[in-house]
């Protein structure tokens, strides 16, 4: 069996294992072991990839394996990873692992919860290892649908409505993708030739420009919905606010990046000419995402809404950077995917933990919490600093790279868009510091809160895992950007010519 198949096999086995458990204790231990193995596998994959770098040319996929599935339609189960996928898999491994520990006290229907969560993770891992568009779509939809149950059953607030909204909007995105992928398939060879879903093969054959112009927007918007592309972002605040902690972490941390990854890997990579021609439309939309998300976050009082809007803004920045279509900006975009994934997962984990203690997410009802729950407070500040791009944290490296890349375009349109987007940094600082100031500093607002206890061991496991990763990227970013850049250059040669 190929090594990469383990990334799907381990979660599936974990799900089967959970079915044999009886209660919360069994379910969470099995999940923790399963996802722990997954984390170790991800780490191994990263180190293996780094060790290969010395050897030389790496623009081929590693662990490439190809199994025929539906021979008549030339659908294969093709897997393989490059540096970007490796980085995304590592991100997923970390966030899922932290998510299991953030759900340690899931009392209501625990087995069902962990099963749904890990099915979701299976979909994400499967998506990142797939090179065949059909398999990719299958894993993508597999990741979306458990979300309905996770939010609907274990969520808070208007959860049924949010769950339905999120699921339908994402599946509508996936509906566009179906058309886009079929379009790519039927243009993947000269008429009468053997069509294929295999991305590595499709790239070799240039799609007709007319077809590209029709299918690029469908595919880009299809994945863009998941990346909260304005104006299709409205599922995000509602969904994230209602979702249970681990789901918010995974969704904002990994799934939204999955959307951005798809935009890059499928839409832009396979249809580069249309991407060049139509980028301006999406640059406008993503600029709006960035600014609108940031201002949205300023207005909110609910911690989860603040972070949901902040995610819209940050993922908008990722899409914006991708559309700049030069090496530096795209390099920054991928860095930002990892960095924001970790950071926002940390945010949502902490919000869940604080909410579990104070039973409110309204920042006006909290104050002076830093003295009472110092560990969680400090962690929140760290996440905040990373989010507003303070040097020393991952966010700085990523955002700087993006802006430098974006400024390389000398024309008016790109300059204006870049300046608009850069201005969002200031707004980001405002909403982050505002929360820190109101919630953590100052006098104690609610005397009940004086009795709160600080983080338990499993909460520490969850948060420290994420903080180590964030600091790791911030302090020594080169290993990550090396991993990414090695694969990025051959990819970009396709896109940039």
């Amino acid at each position, binding site marked *: 069996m190929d090594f990469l198949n383990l990334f799907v096999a381990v979660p599936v086995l974990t799900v089967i294992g959970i079915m044999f458990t009886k209660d919360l204790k069994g379910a969470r231990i099995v999940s923790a072991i399963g996802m722990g193995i997954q984390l170790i596998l991800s780490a191994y994959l990263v180190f293996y990839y780094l060790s290969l770098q010395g050897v030389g040319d790496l623009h081929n996929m590693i662990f490439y394996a190809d199994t025929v599935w539906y021979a008549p339609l030339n659908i294969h189960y093709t897997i393989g990873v490059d540096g970007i996928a490796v980085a995304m898999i590592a991100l997923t491994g970390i966030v899922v692992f932290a998510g299991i520990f953030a759900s340690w006290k899931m009392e209501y229907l625990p087995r069902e919860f962990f099963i749904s969560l890990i099915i979701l993770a299976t979909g994400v891992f499967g998506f990142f290892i797939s090179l065949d568009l059909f398999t990719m779509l299958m894993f993508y939809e597999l990741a979306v649908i458990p979300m309905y149950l996770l939010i609907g059953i274990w969520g808070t607030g208007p959860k049924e409505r949010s769950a339905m909204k999120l699921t339908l909007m994402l599946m509508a995105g996936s509906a566009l993708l*179906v058309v886009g992928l079929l379009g790519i398939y039927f243009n993947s060879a000269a008429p009468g030739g053997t069509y294929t879903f295999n991305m590595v093969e499709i790239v070799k054959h240039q799609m007709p420009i007319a077809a590209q112009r029709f299918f690029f927007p469908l595919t880009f918007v299809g994945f863009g919905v998941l990346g909260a592309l304005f104006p299709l972002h409205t599922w995000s605040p509602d969904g994230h606010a209602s979702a249970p902690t681990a789901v918010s972490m995974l969704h904002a941390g990994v799934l939204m990046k999955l959307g951005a990854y798809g935009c890059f890997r499928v839409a832009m990579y396979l249809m580069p000419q249309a991407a060049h021609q139509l980028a301006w439309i999406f640059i406008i939309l993503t600029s709006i995402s960035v600014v609108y998300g940031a201002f949205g976050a300023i207005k909110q009082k609910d911690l989860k809404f603040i972070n949901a809007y902040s995610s819209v803004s940050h993922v908008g920045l990722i899409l914006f950077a991708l559309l700049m279509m030069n090496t530096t900006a795209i390099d920054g975009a991928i860095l930002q995917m990892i960095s924001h994934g970790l950071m926002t997962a940390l945010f949502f984990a902490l919000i869940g933990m604080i909410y579990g203690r104070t039973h409110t997410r309204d920042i006006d009802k909290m104050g002076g919490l830093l003295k009472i729950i110092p560990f969680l407070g400090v962690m929140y500040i760290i996440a905040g600093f990373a989010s507003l791009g303070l040097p020393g944290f991952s966010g700085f490296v990523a955002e700087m790279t993006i802006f430098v890349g974006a400024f390389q375009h000398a024309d008016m349109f790109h300059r204006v868009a870049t300046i608009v987007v850069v201005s969002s940094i200031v707004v980001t600082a405002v909403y982050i510091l505002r929360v820190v100031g109101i919630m953590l500093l100052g006098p104690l607002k609610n005397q009940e809160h004086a009795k709160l206890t600080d983080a338990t061991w499993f909460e520490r496991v969850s948060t420290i895992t994420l903080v180590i990763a964030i600091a790791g990227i911030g302090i020594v970013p080169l290993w990550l950007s090396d991993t990414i850049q090695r694969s990025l250059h051959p990819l970009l040669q396709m896109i940039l010519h």
Partner: protein
Amino acid sequence: MTNFQYVFLLRHEILLTLAAVVILIAELFTADHKKTSVITFSLVVFTIVTLASFIPAAPGTLFGGSFQGDRLTDLMKDILNVAVLIIFFQSGGYLRRSENSEKIGEFFALILLTMVGMDFMISSGDFLTFFIGLETASIPLAGLAAYDRFKSKSAEAGVKLILLSSIASGILLFGLSMIYGASGSIYFADIAQKMTASPLMILGLIFFISGMGFKISLVPFHLWTADVYEGAPINITAYLSVVSKGAAVFIFTIILFTVFKNIIDLWEIALYALAVLTMTIGNLFALRQDNIKRFLAFSSIAQAGFILLGIMGTGSLGMATVVYFMLVYVFTNLGAFGVATAIYNASGVETISGYKGLYATNPKLSLIMMLALFSLAGIPPVAGFFGKFFLFTSAAKHGYFILVLIAVLNATISLYYYLVVVKAMFIDKNENPIAFFKSTKGMRLSLAICALGIFAIGFASGIFDYILNISKLLF
């Protein structure tokens, strides 16, 4: 061809007729207080029939070309047989009710006789055999729909079905007479050769599509569906929505592909419009239903719209995707109907709002229902995803990307109402949920088969390969 081969080629039809007669005779000789043993007897008989029909036979034609059997038609008949077997396993609970004890034999015999009609229809080589088969398959259906004859809704369903079905048959026959007039023959092979887009032929084609549209319940010929589905006993509803519709889809596809293959452009325009209407209107009506039978009725109308996409692909790929989708649809829809039947038999509940809190009391049934609904909605990894994707592939192959776009957006709308049922079972709280109950053995067996089918068909790519290979024989 020896006589023995004749018999062998007709094995589906002969076995079904024999089974119907044997069951009726057996019921005659059963004492009144032991009538329920007829159920077990019929199940055994029909299981043997289904298994025996799987034995392959050499393809051939009979009666001077009026009847043709090949591996494709055999497969279609086998799919219908399996569907009916599942329905029989699911109907034990309903038939055991005291009010049904005097008419158990009729239930099985009438279904088997409609099956004979459908099998002749699928194998027909001329329009006369086709029409006789169609009528044989339609008339007993009215009796079945009115099986609960003392319930006014059921009686109404029977009357509605027979009246509207006769009108549809009349229209169809009128169309067939025009086709005969235009081509001078009733044999498929002859007509195909002489096929030209003459005005008379086009008019005949329109009438033909309308008549078949009624049987497949395409919009705007669907108006009977919801009332009949609601009024008929739930097992009959399952039969109507899976088997009866499936047979009509099969022969509709075959005739369009073989007889009308020279004027593909013409009927594709009609199918385009019908597909858009059927998917959209079926969906919009399904959104507002609370009765599970009406809900499944409209959902099955919408599904018929998706099937048209497969037909529009034409060629062996189109044929294969349609047959494959019907195979998936058998397990999927019967899984959903099976759960609804079990719940109805145990508690009398047949509304979606009555399902609230079902997961707390009957987790296994809820899970199977969820799987079936996800499969209907086309969510991976269950079989419906593959079935639908291949239908879309078939239509996209001819460049109907806009139609595929309309279809996938409709699939998203359909997800909403499937999720409403999931929400009722898994999320909504209920003070008095349906109490825990144990289904009959037959029901559990049938649901296990459906669950297995829903899971396995998608991954076992060999099934699709097989269907595609035998579909190529048609062309």
